[in-house]
């Protein structure tokens, strides 16, 4: 890693030098352990037979309990698993990209263009963040029925895009407002058009923010169940979350399957996070060097 040696935090090292370095490590490891325990519980549960899950705590299984791959087998062979996985990808990719495509120029304009009502527009966006989605379902479903979008991927893309937009604009605005304005000015003086400026300077500089946004939006869309059920209304188009829910009885009591299903489902966003984490740290260093 190129960033490690020169960027060793002076703060930590001074602090650690003064107090006990071990205490810091112990604290960090403890926090890590506490954070890991619930997930570990879910993971162990996902490998246990349902009878054991009902009878004893998951930690009792760690030394010499019975484990089974049966839960995963059941999840992976659920009716329509492959289709729903494909659907999840088909829903999540555009529903992650579109809000960014819509939000980035808007956030840039709100942060750097001087126009009347700019403040009001931005505050309206912040206010929209808190509108409960439940309130929008019926009006939007009516609209979709009118336009024939109910049951189409386009409809669910639009819905996710709109629902994700306030947060996307908010996040990108915050980041873009901190960008060095002098760079924009010099580009303008060089005769760059606004579009060119946006595409060649603003977007590349915003990579870390775009990457974080992509993670959040992707996770949100990937885990969504209720919007898909409301706007798609068609089992053939439902995402993975719906297929996994289909394993559960009306009492929702099959915790061993829920646990296995969660791990199958979360593996994808986890990979995305790991992939993008690398990416946006690099983006940040590039920014820092320039700044």
């Amino acid at each position, binding site marked *: 890693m190129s960033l490690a040696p020169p960027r060793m935090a002076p703060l930590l090292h001074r602090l650690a030098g003064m107090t006990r370095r071990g205490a810091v490590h112990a604290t960090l490891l403890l926090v890590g352990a506490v954070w890991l325990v619930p997930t570990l519980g879910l993971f162990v549960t996902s490998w246990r037979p*349902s*009878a054991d*899950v*009902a*009878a004893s705590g998951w930690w009792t299984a760690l030394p010499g309990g019975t484990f089974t791959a049966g839960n995963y087998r059941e999840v992976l062979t659920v009716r329509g698993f492959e289709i729903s996985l494909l659907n999840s990808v*088909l829903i999540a*990719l*555009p529903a992650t*990209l*579109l809000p960014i*495509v819509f939000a980035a120029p808007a956030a840039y304009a709100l942060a750097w263009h001087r126009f009347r009502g700019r403040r009001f527009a931005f505050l309206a966006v912040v206010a929209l963040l808190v509108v409960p989605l*439940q309130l929008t*379902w*019926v009006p*939007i*479903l*009516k609209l*979709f*029925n009118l336009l*024939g979008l*109910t*049951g*189409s*991927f*386009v409809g669910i*893309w639009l819905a996710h895009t709109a629902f994700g937009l306030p947060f996307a604009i908010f996040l990108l605005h915050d980041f873009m407002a901190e960008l060095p304005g002098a760079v924009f000015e010099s580009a303008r003086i060089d005769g760059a058009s606004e579009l060119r400026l946006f*595409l*060649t*300077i603003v*977007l*590349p500089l915003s*990579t870390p923010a775009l990457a974080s946004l992509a993670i959040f939006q992707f996770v949100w869309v990937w885990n969504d*169940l*209720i919007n898909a*059920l*409301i706007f798609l*209304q*068609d*089992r053939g*188009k439902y995402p993975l979350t*719906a297929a996994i*829910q*289909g*394993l*559960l*009885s*009306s*009492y*929702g*009591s*099959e915790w061993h*399957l829920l646990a296995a299903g969660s791990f199958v489902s979360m593996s994808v966003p986890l990979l995305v996070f790991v992939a993008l984490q690398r990416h946006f740290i690099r*983006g940040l260093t*590039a920014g820092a060097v320039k700044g």
Partner: protein
Amino acid sequence: MTQRKRRYSCRLNLPLLALLAFWGSALPPVAAGSEPVRIMATWGGDEEAGFREVLDAFTGNTGIRYEYDGSRNIDILLKTRVYGGSPPDVAILPQFGAIVELVRQRAILPLSGERPDPILTWDELARNYDRAFIDLGTIDGAFYALPVKANSKSVCWYRPPSFRALGIEPPRTWQELQAIAEAHLRRGKAPFAIGGADGWPLTDWFENIYVRVAGPAMYRKLFLTHEVKWTDATVVEAMRRLGDVVWPEAKLAGGAEGTLSTGFIDAFNAVLRPRPAAGIYCGGGFMSAFAEQNFPALQGQQDYAFFEFPSIDPRWGRPVVVGGDFAVVFNDRPAVRRLIGFLAGKEASTIWASAERGAVVSPNRNVPLAVYRPFKRLEAQQLIGAGGLVFDGSDLAPSAVGRDAMVTALQAFVEEPERVREYLRALEGAAARSY
């Protein structure tokens, strides 16, 4: 990263998006030709497998395709879709209060009644169902809600070996139940486990007691029509009896607060597991499925069994509180009519009752008892032989009462029984603005 590369990737995205958009819109919503019947219900897993056996038989008989959409979130989904203007053809709902609401909104169609071409005739209904089911499904003179599945809520699960160890027998009366509770307490054991974190185990307890204290007519007036107020003397009396169960809190596994943080399955497991935390779990014939799944080593009847909820007032005996699922119809099409006709008949009910996975107790009285598995057969016998059937009161009432105010009042009662009149006043207030 260089600027050129970045720009390139930006441009690449646009055609990709356009392609995806085209693909998304090009997929037709449903294949043209014979339109399938769209059915919504709450079932998944094994329950769904059982229902699909029925639906597959329907398709086999008629060639009509179906689309089944099962979700535990049916409350939200159905309401949203009804108001949004795209309901399914048929929905199967467990909550009768929601059905009454749909009738009031004119969202669902009568299956029978004053219309020239009923989907089901009164004769057909009378041939297949107990009077109680037909009366229940009849709202303002027309029949709307076809019962397709029933379960008894008047059973109490216990372990015969544990009872033998205590020298006790399953109770038939309230006094005997009290004696059993005392026998547990003397040995330092909690007699009852109640999953009070889920509201309905508490409402089931109350309903069983209330119908035994006040009788079926008052029961109907309290829950369905709200002609009886929650502050009525009969309600107070029923709460006093419920106090026999939850007070002192040593009678409850985990105590009062433990009860309020325990879900129904954990409560049930606490009775059946190797070192039981309680002796009795009341409510839900369907719990046999959980016993089979969670305790495969135990033998039904031998290691665990149920007794009927004991009687309180000999006048009313032991009526059965029934939970059920009802089919309602949103669109009148020939295919939908045939499906409803099929579901109402003996063939579909028998297939469902004898399904490999997810077998149900059928409300259809022509289903031969022989097709059931042991516990289901006992449950079905109880439903047929009952002195009277009443329906789960918390499902009859609007959910603002049955799933909200009533649950809050009962949870409060478990924790602080002495302030019962205060809770009942609040409950009555909620009921007054919900019917």
